[in-house]
């Protein structure tokens, strides 16, 4: 503490104010960390906006002040240090759910989705994700380490690609390193507790999810083999579609719709059950008699990246058949 007489200041995450008036104005600088007075000239102050108000000088940092981060305040000849303690009631980041949720997965599994309780830090996300084998070794080159993490708009859902170059047969990483996962073996997906939320606060413990690998899935999902459990007329009963295999969470969400004979969309909520192998639709309004169609997006995938039109991993014999135009996928049903 270097102040001869401490100025009166208050702070929170969004700003710091220091009591003054226009007659006693002076410059206010905030620095990251506890910086000794003699070293201040070597450090850059924090960017922000300085506003002179009637009785206070207000500094609004460009990025809100962080929890547990020490700061140095310099006002005229005064140097003060301050820190915002993490609130006691702070809800730490945790994993709410993980997809695929099934415990037995095909060896050519392509994607994982992790649903977090809060928005996560967007920097170096994939550095905190590990796959570990049964003896505790971390798998190398197991995921696609994207510079720009694939995070949902609300900041809570993270997509992880299992290294596609290894999962797809005959690509160079596959021929050199083999597939990431081996049949009949068990693995753990670990989210290290070092992963932080958007406020820069870490998780309290590692998240560990165990799973076992079975044979590769090299069959396209076929909607014609799916079984529909019809709802009851004049009720809000669920329509269930049993797919007999787990579907990819991300590509299936919002990729199915029901329309009536007038081509009007039926409003309601879709959910997954049975480890994402059953699609469940609950209408907002009671079902009416009539003919319906269920529309499926071509890009609905199974866990191995096989979509309704093509296998993820196959020889392409006709380039014209692989363009982006695809046929419609629909199932019809009637309620009587």
């Amino acid at each position, binding site marked *: 503490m270097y102040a001869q007489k401490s100025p009166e200041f208050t702070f929170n995450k969004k700003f710091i104010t220091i009591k003054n008036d226009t007659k006693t104005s002076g410059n206010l600088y905030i620095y*990251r960390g506890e910086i000794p007075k003699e070293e201040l000239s070597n450090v850059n102050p924090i960017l922000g906006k300085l506003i002179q108000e009637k009785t206070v000088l207000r500094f609004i*940092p460009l990025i809100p002040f962080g929890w547990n981060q020490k700061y140095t305040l310099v006002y005229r000849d005064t140097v003060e240090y301050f820190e915002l303690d993490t609130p006691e009631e702070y809800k730490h980041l945790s994993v709410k759910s993980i997809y695929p949720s099934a415990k037995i997965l095909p060896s050519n599994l392509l994607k994982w989705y992790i649903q977090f309780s809060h928005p996560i830090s967007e*920097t170096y996300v994939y550095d905190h994700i590990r796959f570990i084998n049964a003896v505790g070794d971390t798998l190398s080159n197991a995921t696609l380490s994207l510079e720009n993490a694939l995070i949902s*708009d609300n900041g809570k859902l993270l997509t992880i690609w299992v290294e596609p170059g290894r999962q797809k047969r005959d690509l*160079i*990483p596959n021929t050199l*390193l083999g597939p990431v996962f081996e049949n009949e073996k068990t693995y753990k997906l670990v989210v290290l507790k070092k992963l*932080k939320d958007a406020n820069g606060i870490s998780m309290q413990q590692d998240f560990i999810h165990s799973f076992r690998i079975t044979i590769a899935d090299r069959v396209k999902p076929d909607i014609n083999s799916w079984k529909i459990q019809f709802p009851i007329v004049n009720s809000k009963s669920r329509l269930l579609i049993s797919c007999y295999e787990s579907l990819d969470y991300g590509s299936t969400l919002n990729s199915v719709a029901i329309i009536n004979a007038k081509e009007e969309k039926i409003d309601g909520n879709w959910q997954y059950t049975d480890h994402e192998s059953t699609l469940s639709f609950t209408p907002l309004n009671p079902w009416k008699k009539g003919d319906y169609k269920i529309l499926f997006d071509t*890009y609905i995938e199974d866990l191995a990246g096989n979509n309704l039109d093509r296998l993820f991993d196959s020889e392409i014999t006709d380039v014209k058949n692989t363009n982006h135009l695809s046929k419609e996928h629909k199932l019809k049903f009637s309620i009587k």
Partner: protein
Amino acid sequence: MKTLITFVLLLILSFLENPILANSSLKANFKTGDPGITSINSMTFGPEGILFIGDSKSAQIVAIDLSTHPKVDNSTVKINFLDILIADMLGTPIDQIQITDMVVNPENNNIYLSVHHSSGNALLFRVENNKLKKVSLDNISHSKTSLIDPVHKEAKDKRGRKLRKWAVADIKYTSGKVMLSGLSNKEFASTFRSVDFPFTDKQDYGSLEIYHAAHGQYETHAPIKAFIPTTIKGSSHIIAGYTCTPLVIFPMDNIKPGEHNKGRTIAELGSGNSPVDMVEIKNGGQRYLLIANSNRPLMKMEFTDLESYNGSLTSPVIKKGAAEGVDYVNLPYVNVQQLDKFGEAGFLIVQRESSGNLALKKGNSWWLEK
């Protein structure tokens, strides 16, 4: 008469100082305001000081006018401890910031760095006298276009919004077109877009595929990490670097919207590696391709070698980590995280040096001499 001469001189001076700002047809649709940039994943300069920003989070390309930034002398540019400097300026731990790109305006050598903060803030900095100045993005002359995918006619408004996130990997400008490569969290494919500039509603989509002899057919579904538009044997081409790490060329004339387009693999740059940035530099009448990598040193390839290579790699490289195809030289720059052309014949890098120092500095042009 004196007044008239003064007026004419002032008029000439005003044109000299700001020759294109007022009447540029490229900026005719620009308006001043907040373009709503929420992420800066990749950047590139077009003509007239226009910076193109690939914004994955807001699914948009934003063109901003930076021509008003003064010409600066960056001939002695060197910033040590760049990550610490940025963390200090943002008042945040170093692990909560990420430098997402670095570009140089070829018209005035201004250097720009884009930075993401863990809280979701995207920031743009300009280098001035080896210090960083924040570039305000909330009231800027700009034009933008959406990257939202078109949906099937019947699907429109029926299935709601898709859970699609798109990560822009690279963005480049050439001859009235902005081109982007990237990867979505849905299909694993080399999504490649070409967007007319000035922006219109028209966008072309396609995927650029690699010839892969193991199947005897065309291999698709791999994302392009870095690319450049260039000229090979007098005609326009794309040189694209893929993860793990084939280097592939595509004749521009052959790229058809909405289709898979076959490329020719001209080099394998070693497995376990991924290209980070690539630039073309002319020096002493020679053209060079520089490639920064995640797990290899900075590579230099001569265009004369590249143009004379008529083959196509058709079988996987057997020797682990080996490279094949067009010859290249490893330059003594490892851990290069950002790369751009600098001045007439130089290059600028952000490099994690062996001491741990993250440095923004010029590369030595000596390496680009015959």
